[in-house]
Structures are given as structure tokens and as C-alpha cells.
């Protein structure tokens, strides 16, 4: 149940802490980092989807005026690395497996010279047979992307909970269909980049626009064969992440080896084309067969899902993403009997990976459409089907996910009201229709070892202001503001009196970074604990000054006083100064940590993967132009359950931004491959939503409280794009009776379906 609590900083519409730097252009993004003597690096990429390297001659490039270093695999340990499977190299060893793979690199005095040098590197290639489609790749006799991966399969999942055969036998109707999801690129307006420096002592300092600094350090250390301490990663301002900047690519590694060889700092920034070819790892594309069994009353009795997922040439995060697509949605509705089978398959294309939603948008694209098909076949309002099956607080999914708070039903009520669903359904106009889908997401996910935690340190300055030291970097989403609010609330000071550091692996404590909608919940808890710790130190000092028991003190608005006697107080600043000056100058520093109450899933992938689950409902009203197939979204509605909203204006931005990416995924974005080569790797041919493309959006947050969250909060970041594509497709079906089963939903596809339907 929702629990009302009154806060003075949390939930207030505060300004973001890094707003000024951004409106003035002062923020230093990765391209703005300029070091003395710095060189610029460029990468030579494979023009072939699969080819053996017979010979590389770099001598001409080395002799070009202005070139300071040329590197190939010979300058590396030839040691594979990767997030879950070590299967990719810094620079191609022996062969290249996709168009865009890093083969060699150059550092030169400027970019034009570096580009000229690339053209002088002579590579003798032997093109090999390649495979581009995951299903083809699984067939016997298909070319092998990695010789040791039989049938190109990277991961197989085959899990049954309950008795699926019996459950289907007990179902009144069965819905069965196949849906194809699409790749999607993050399209952060800032591309991936790094500036690396190598000191003769053996230490690398790398500026990165990464969203996961310590994970990046771990992987970079493994690939370079040095201890983690020999690598310092400093986060620049980050121009958007969305999962794309989680260090699954080689950009920073190439910069590091160039810097070592050249003896000078080297900057490597991806061009937009490189970003599409081999930068951020795009959303895993999947072919998904769904079979659902329903009872007549609308209850889902059985679910069988079969996924073939395209891993691309190397494994980034796709092994975990495949699991999410296969299982996560079973936490959205009350399921008893489920079967899930998934294959993650290598192909000669760009490695796929983490993107906002992490498998959920693909799965929900399929499953939420299958549920809609069931609703139509049963003649039940999709809103009712969702209500009948919706998860509730206390629900434990068949895979062991334990739901501590869930306001999905409240979100359905809110959506129904905001959309005026009943009235619109009753007065249905020709060619317009309503669509709905529900979603669930985690607040952190335990999969990088048996840890899903965070830590933070708070230092109180002599003027009483607090500085949070945290390695959980800001990537644009506004989490630093939320962390400052949480610290301010706990300390009883104004949010203006709390600052937060940049993330820096040498100066901040171990943190996993921005992924899995985890930061508000997990780092929020760590910050709250650190603030509580440091507050006790201040209270101890104040208790001496106020001649009161420390346990009787509270703080509010920068003052510490005895509960019920607000007239008698000391300011936090006075207490801080007094403590610093009276205790041998001992620093006022408090640390806090938090590890979610989740478990590392076992071999059968059973186990509560996250500390808290966030829920949401989205609905659309669309109009379809029968002459052109153009879909116009007339109205869009979102209700989100993210527990207590810490930073309202930021949370609203997360919903609106996630929704925009959802619309892009549903209607606009699409990369075309021709024999493994992206045909449209730029913003004029790969379109992302512009300001004029987004329909009117109404959204609201459920009254919700997560008992394990900081002040009742849980995650939000990914929830908002997960179900959007399914919502739009469901609405199109309601409008004109055709169902689009491949993404994106282009006018051509709608028109073709309408023509076929007649």
C-alpha cells in the first residue's frame, strides 16, 4: 500500500545541480578535454563482414608526416575480453567478423593527417563466407563466426516452471504468433570517445564518457593485462548514454594503446558513422514466438515463449539481455506455468547489447501484442484483461522475483481515466483505435558477480556544506540531483548545501554505474546511509553544544535542535566547524553502502534478480490513414509506479524521454543491412524523433512507496520505453484491424497489410 510521508527536499521541484554548466556551454564533454601535446586517433575498420587478414603493412602510414603511432593487434596482448564472455579483441587478431571491426589505428597531429594515414595502411584480406541472419546461422553447415561455437550458438535457455503441457490443456483459448523486433541505436547526440594518457610509471589515465566507470576499468584492465589500480578512469560530462556507453566497445582501449605507443595523450572520438558501425552496441534484435493460453474469464493460464536473438559477432551484454527478454515479463502478470526457450546466436554483424529496456522492449513488443490478440478473441476489453492478470505487492514470479511494491492496478485506473478509455471505446470513430500495454522493470539487477550495490562517502566542509563523493556518474538523466536531494533530506539541510563530485575511479569508492534503472534506488540508499552516518557525527557534536542527548536531536533546514524545542539550535555549519576544530581536525566523513536484497540467479536462472520492481501502463489513441498507411498518434498516456518520486521534474523528463525513444522504436527508426553492412549509418537516413514527431503526452505517477527504497523510491529510467511499440501496434489493430508484427511500423507495412486485408 502507498504510504504518505512528508519530506522537505525529496519530492520538491528543485533545479538540477548541473544546469548552469550546460546552458552556457561550459560543461566539458569528452571532445572538450584537451591535454598538452595531445594527438588525435582514428581507427581503420574492416570493410568485410568476415575476412581473414593475410598481411598488414603499416610502414607507409608510419612515414607520413605528422603520424606519431600506428598500432595493430601486434601491439596488444591478443587477449580476448568482454562483459560476460571474453570473445572480442582490441584489434582484429587473424580475422575480422563484422563490417566496422577495429583492425588498426593511427595517432597523428590532427584528424585529417590521421585519416590520410589510415588510407596508407595496406591490408591484404581473404574474404570468408559470412552469415547475417540468426536463424540461418543456427543451421548445420552455416559459416562459423567463432570456430569453437557450434551452430553459432552463444547461449541457450530452456526453462519450464510448473507444468506447461497441462496448463495449455486447461486453457480455453490459445493464441500463437511470431513477432520480429528491430535493432535500435542509442543515438546519444554525443558519440563515444576517450582521451588516454600513459605515464612511464605504467599508469593509464583515461577520460571517458562512460556510464559505468568501474566496470569499464575492470574490462580495460583485463584486456590490457594490468591490475585495475594501474588504470584511472575519469568521467567527462556525458552527452547521453541509454546503455550505449557501458564500455562494450574498443574505443578507450584503442586510445590507451595508441597513447602508450606514442608517449603522448591520444583522443579518439567516434564519428557518427563509426557509432553506427561499431560504437554503441544496438538493441538485440529478436524473433519471438509467443503462445499464450487463456481461461474464458481472461486469466492467462500458460505462457510459452521462444526467442532467437542476434548476438552479432561478439558478446557484449546480449547474454543477459536474452534472459531478460525470456523471463522478465513474467513479473508483470500473475503467471503460474511458463516455458521459455531462447537462443542467442552469433552472426557477422555489429555486436548487439545494452539499450534502455535491456530486452524488455523486444519481449513486450511480442507478449503484449499476444495478450491483446487474446483480449480481442475473448471479447474482453484489453484494460480488463490487464486488470485480471496484473501483479500485486507480494507477488512472487515463477522465476523467483519477489515484488515488494506494485501499483500496476492503480496505474491501470489512472490510464483509463487519463485516456477517457471507456468513453473513447464506446464512441469509436472509423480508422481510430485504442491500444494498451503494461510493463515491469527492475531497480538494479544482480548479474555482475554476486553484488548489486553501491557506496558513497559524504564529507562535511567547515562551512557545513556537504560534498558527496560517488563513482555513480551523471550521464544526463539527472541522478546527481536526486542523490543531492536524498543526502539533503537525510542531513536536514537545503539541497543547495549539497554538492556532488565527478566520478573518478581513483577518488571515489567502488560503484557499478548507470544501468538497470538502478541509481535512484541503489545509490540513493547508499547516499542515504552515508548521510545518516555523517549526521550522527554532527549530532554528537551538537549534543555537546546543546547539552542534550544525541538521540533526541533532529535536523531541518540546516539547523540541529532538540525534538520539540526548535528555538534552541545550532546550525550545521557551527557544529561542523566546532567538530573539526575540537577533534584534532579529524575529518567529518561518513561512508554508506547498500546491496540490494536480491540473489544471483542459479543455473536454472531462478532467483530474485532485483531489490524492487517498477511498473507502468501506457495507452495510445491512433488514427490510421488508409490511403497512405500513415499512423498518427492522437493522444498518448503513461502512468508510472516508481515509488516515491524524489526529483519530480527529472522523473517527468525520464518518462517523456523514454517515451520519445519508444516512439522512435515503434514508428521511425530502422537500420538496413546489406550483406552485413549498414546502409544508412547517419542521421539523415536513420531518423530519430524530432520535436515535431512526438504526439501529445499526458502522464502521471502512482501514489506508491517501496519499503526498501530510499524514502520509498525505486527505478524509473527504462520503464517508459518498454511497452510503447506494442501499445502503438495494438492501437493500429483496434483502428483498422491489421496487425503489424515487424518493427518499425512504417506506412509501407501498414498499407501493405491493409491492401492484403482488402
Amino acid at each position, binding site marked *: 500500500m502507498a504510504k504518505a510521508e512528508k519530506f522537505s527536499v525529496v519530492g520538491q521541484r528543485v533545479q538540477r545541480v548541473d544546469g548552469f554548466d550546460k546552458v552556457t556551454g561550459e560543461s566539458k564533454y569528452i571532445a572538450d578535454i584537451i591535454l598538452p601535446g595531445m594527438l588525435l586517433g582514428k581507427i581503420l575498420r574492416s570493410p568485410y563482414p568476415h575476412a581473414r587478414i593475410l598481411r598488414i603493412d603499416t610502414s607507409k602510414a608510419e612515414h607520413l608526416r605528422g603520424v606519431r603511432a600506428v598500432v595493430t593487434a601486434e601491439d596488444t596482448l591478443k587477449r580476448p575480453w568482454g562483459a560476460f564472455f571474453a570473445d572480442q579483441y582490441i584489434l582484429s587478431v587473424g580475422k575480422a567478423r563484422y563490417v566496422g571491426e577495429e583492425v588498426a589505428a593511427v595517432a597523428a597531429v590532427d584528424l585529417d593527417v590521421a585519416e590520410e594515414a589510415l588510407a596508407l595502411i595496406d591490408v591484404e584480406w581473404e574474404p570468408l563466407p559470412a552469415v547475417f541472419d540468426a536463424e540461418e546461422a543456427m543451421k548445420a553447415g552455416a559459416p562459423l563466426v567463432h570456430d569453437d561455437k557450434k551452430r553459432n550458438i552463444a547461449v541457450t535457455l530452456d526453462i519450464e516452471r510448473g507444468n506447461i503441457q497441462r496448463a495449455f490443456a486447461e486453457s480455453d483459448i490459445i493464441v500463437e504468433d511470431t513477432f520480429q523486433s528491430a535493432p535500435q541505436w542509442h543515438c546519444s547526440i554525443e558519440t563515444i570517445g576517450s582521451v588516454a594518457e600513459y605515464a612511464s610509471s605504467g599508469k593509464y589515465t583515461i577520460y571517458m564518457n562512460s556510464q559505468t566507470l568501474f566496470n569499464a576499468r575492470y574490462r580495460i584492465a583485463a584486456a590490457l593485462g594490468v591490475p585495475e589500480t594501474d588504470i584511472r578512469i575519469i568521467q567527462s560530462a556525458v552527452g547521453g548514454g541509454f546503455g550505449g556507453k557501458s564500455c562494450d566497445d574498443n574505443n578507450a582501449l584503442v586510445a590507451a594503446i595508441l597513447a602508450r605507443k606514442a608517449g603522448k595523450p591520444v583522443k579518439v572520438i567516434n564519428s557518427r558513422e563509426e557509432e553506427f558501425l561499431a560504437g554503441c552496441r544496438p538493441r538485440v534484435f529478436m524473433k519471438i514466438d509467443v503462445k499464450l493460453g487463456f481461461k474464458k474469464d481472461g486469466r492467462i493460464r500458460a505462457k510459452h515463449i521462444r526467442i532467437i536473438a542476434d548476438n552479432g559477432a561478439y558478446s557484449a551484454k546480449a547474454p543477459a539481455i536474452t534472459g531478460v527478454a525470456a523471463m522478465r515479463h513474467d513479473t508483470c502478470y500473475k503467471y503460474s506455468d511458463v516455458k521459455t526457450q531462447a537462443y542467442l546466436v552469433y552472426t557477422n554483424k555489429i555486436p548487439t547489447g545494452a539499450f534502455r529496456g535491456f530486452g524488455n522492449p523486444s519481449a513486450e513488443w511480442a507478449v503484449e501484442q499476444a495478450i491483446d490478440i487474446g483480449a480481442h478473441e475473448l471479447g474482453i476489453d484489453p484494460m480488463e484483461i490487464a486488470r485480471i492478470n496484473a501483479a500485486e505487492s507480494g507477488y512472487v514470479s515463477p522465476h523467483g522475483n519477489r515484488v515488494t511494491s506494485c501499483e500496476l492496478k492503480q496505474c491501470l485506473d489512472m490510464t483509463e481515466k487519463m485516456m477517457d478509455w471507456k468513453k473513447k471505446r464506446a464512441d469509436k470513430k472509423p480508422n481510430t483505435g485504442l491500444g494498451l500495454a503494461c510493463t515491469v522493470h527492475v531497480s538494479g539487477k544482480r548479474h555482475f558477480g554476486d553484488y548489486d550495490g553501491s557506496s558513497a562517502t559524504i564529507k562535511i566542509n567547515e562551512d557545513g556544506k556537504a560534498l558527496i563523493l560517488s563513482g555513480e556518474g551523471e550521464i544526463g538523466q539527472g541522478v546527481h540531483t536526486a542523490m543531492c536531494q536524498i543526502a539533503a533530506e537525510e542531513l536536514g539541510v537545503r539541497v543547495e548545501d549539497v554538492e556532488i563530485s565527478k566520478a573518478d575511479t581513483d577518488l571515489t569508492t567502488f560503484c557499478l554505474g548507470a544501468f538497470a534503472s538502478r541509481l535512484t534506488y541503489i545509490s540513493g540508499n547508499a547516499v542515504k546511509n552515508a548521510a545518516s552516518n555523517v549526521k550522527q557525527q554532527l549530532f554528537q557534536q551538537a549534543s555537546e553544544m546543546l547539552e542534550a542527548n544525541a538521540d533526541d536531536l533532529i535536523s531541518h533546514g540546516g539547523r540541529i535542535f532538540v525534538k520539540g524545542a526548535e528555538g534552541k539550535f545550532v546550525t550545521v555549519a557551527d557544529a561542523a566547524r566546532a567538530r573539526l576544530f575540537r577533534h584534532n581536525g579529524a575529518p567529518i566523513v561518513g561512508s554508506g553502502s547498500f546491496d540490494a536484497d536480491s540473489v544471483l540467479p542459479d543455473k536454472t536462472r531462478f532467483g530474485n534478480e532485483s531489490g524492487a520492481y517498477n511498473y507502468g501502463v501506457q495507452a495510445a489513441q491512433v488514427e490510421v490513414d488508409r*490511403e497512405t498507411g*500513415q499512423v498518427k498518434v492522437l493522444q498518448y498516456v503513461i502512468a508510472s509506479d516508481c515509488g516515491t518520486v524524489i526529483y519530480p521534474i527529472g522523473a517527468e523528463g525520464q518518462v517523456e524521454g523514454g517515451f520519445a525513444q519508444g516512439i522512435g522504436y515503434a*514508428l521511425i527508426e530502422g537500420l538496413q543491412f546489406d550483406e552485413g553492412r549498414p546502409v544508412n549509418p547517419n542521421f539523415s537516413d536513420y*531518423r530519430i524523433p*524530432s520535436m515535431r514527431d512526438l504526439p501529445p503526452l499526458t502522464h502521471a505517477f502512482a501514489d506508491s512507496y517501496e519499503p526498501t527504497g530510499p524514502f520509498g523510491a525505486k527505478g524509473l529510467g527504462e520503464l517508459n520505453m518498454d511497452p510503447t511499440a506494442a501499445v502503438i501496434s495494438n492501437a493500429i489493430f483496434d483502428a483498422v484491424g491489421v496487425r503489424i508484427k515487424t518493427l518499425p511500423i512504417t506506412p509501407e507495412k501498414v*498499407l501493405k497489410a491493409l491492401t492484403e486485408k482488402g
Partner: protein
Amino acid sequence: MVKFDYFEPKSVEQACAFLERHADEAKLIAGGTALLIWMRMMLLNPHVVVSLARIPGFDSISFDPKDGLRIKAGARHRDIELDPAVREHYPLLYETFRKVAQPRIRNMGTIGGNLCQGDPLTDPGASLIAMDAEITLTSSKAKRTLPLEKFFVDYYQTDLRPGEILIEIRVPLPARPLGWAHIKFLPRSQEDFATVGVALVLRGNALGKRRRSCAAKRSPMIESGRWRRWPRMKSIPWMTTAAPPITNVT
């Protein structure tokens, strides 16, 4: 991008002379919005770039009721959009030019550059053809005037001959009453290039009659397919079965 030498002639004659001297290796630049992209993609690698931007009067727009509208090739899309005579006498052109890309592209790109690029995805060509525009081209040797319709040969192919510079576009004053429309179909995003664009002009007798008697001007510009694997125009039936609605009569 390749290294190149950059010249800024002060007259059309000088520009023609540069072109003649550097024959195959020179490219003209006016606004540069399209040329730059092609050069960055290494699709064009000229060793000499000749800018027309500093030729006095090369961006002027003038109107005379008898002679019609004369747009010098260096006029920017935005200048044409904002020109009072265009707005008053050529509403179709106003409607078209205000829909080209976004203001900051219109602030840079010139009409001459647009037409000479022969890009079927852009908007002005069809409307100018529908308005019976004619263009004047000049070289060191000769000057010629031809209907714009004849200038477009195929995708990205025009009748621009070596050494020639497009210097002027003339649009006769249309007879009134005039019915007109310009619509484009944007498949994905509002900021996209059109899949199909149609400009339509109806004069005198055609007005008020049934739609199929309308004299719709079509040009190569109205057909376009963006990606090799995406369906082309034939899959969009309204293109072949119906003309755009005539909502504007002036």
C-alpha cells in the same frame, strides 16, 4: 576530406574562367550545405573549390509584372521564402520554400545549388517546374536559357555542362485565377526528406472542373526511393490514382 584550393571570384566571368582553367577538378560552392556532405563522405573530392558567394548581386531577387520573377542562383531558400513579391504573386513558391528542411538550412542553401545538385528528394524543383520556370546558364563560351523541366535528367543528373554556371531562374507571372498545391509525404519523421512530393498548378479552365481533368505537372522530382530495400513510389496508390486536394485558389 581532401585538401583543396579555395577561390572567391568577384564576378561570374571570373568564376567561369576558374571553372574553365580547372576543368575536371573544380567544384562550385554556393551555400555549401549539400556539397560539404558529399565531400565529407568522399563522394566528391575536388582539388579546387570556387565560391560564388562573394559575387555582388548573385543573391538578388527581383520582380516585374511583365517579366515575372527573377531569382539569381545565389539566393538562399530563406530569402525566397521571405521575399514580399514571392509571397504576393507566387503563393505556391512561398508555400514550397517555407517547407524546405528547417530555417537554418534555408538560411544557408541556395536555389542554384539545390537545382544543380539534381537531388530528387528536395522540394523546390517540382514547384518551379509547375510554375513554368526557366533557367539561364552561362559559361566562358556561351549562354543559354531552357525550361527547368528539361534541366533534370535523372537522379542527381542534370543538363549542366562542363564549365557552365546556373545564374538565374525566371518564373513568369501566372495568370489568375490560380489553383495550387504542394504536398509531400514524409514516411517517418517530420524532419525527413519526402518520399514523394507533388506540386500542382491549375489555371483558368481547369479550375472548377473535376479533379481528373487537372493538368498536374509531374517531374522526375516526384519519384524517389530512399533506401534500396524500401518500397518505392509505386506502393503508394494515391500518387497514381488521385491528385492532391486543391485547397488554395488565389
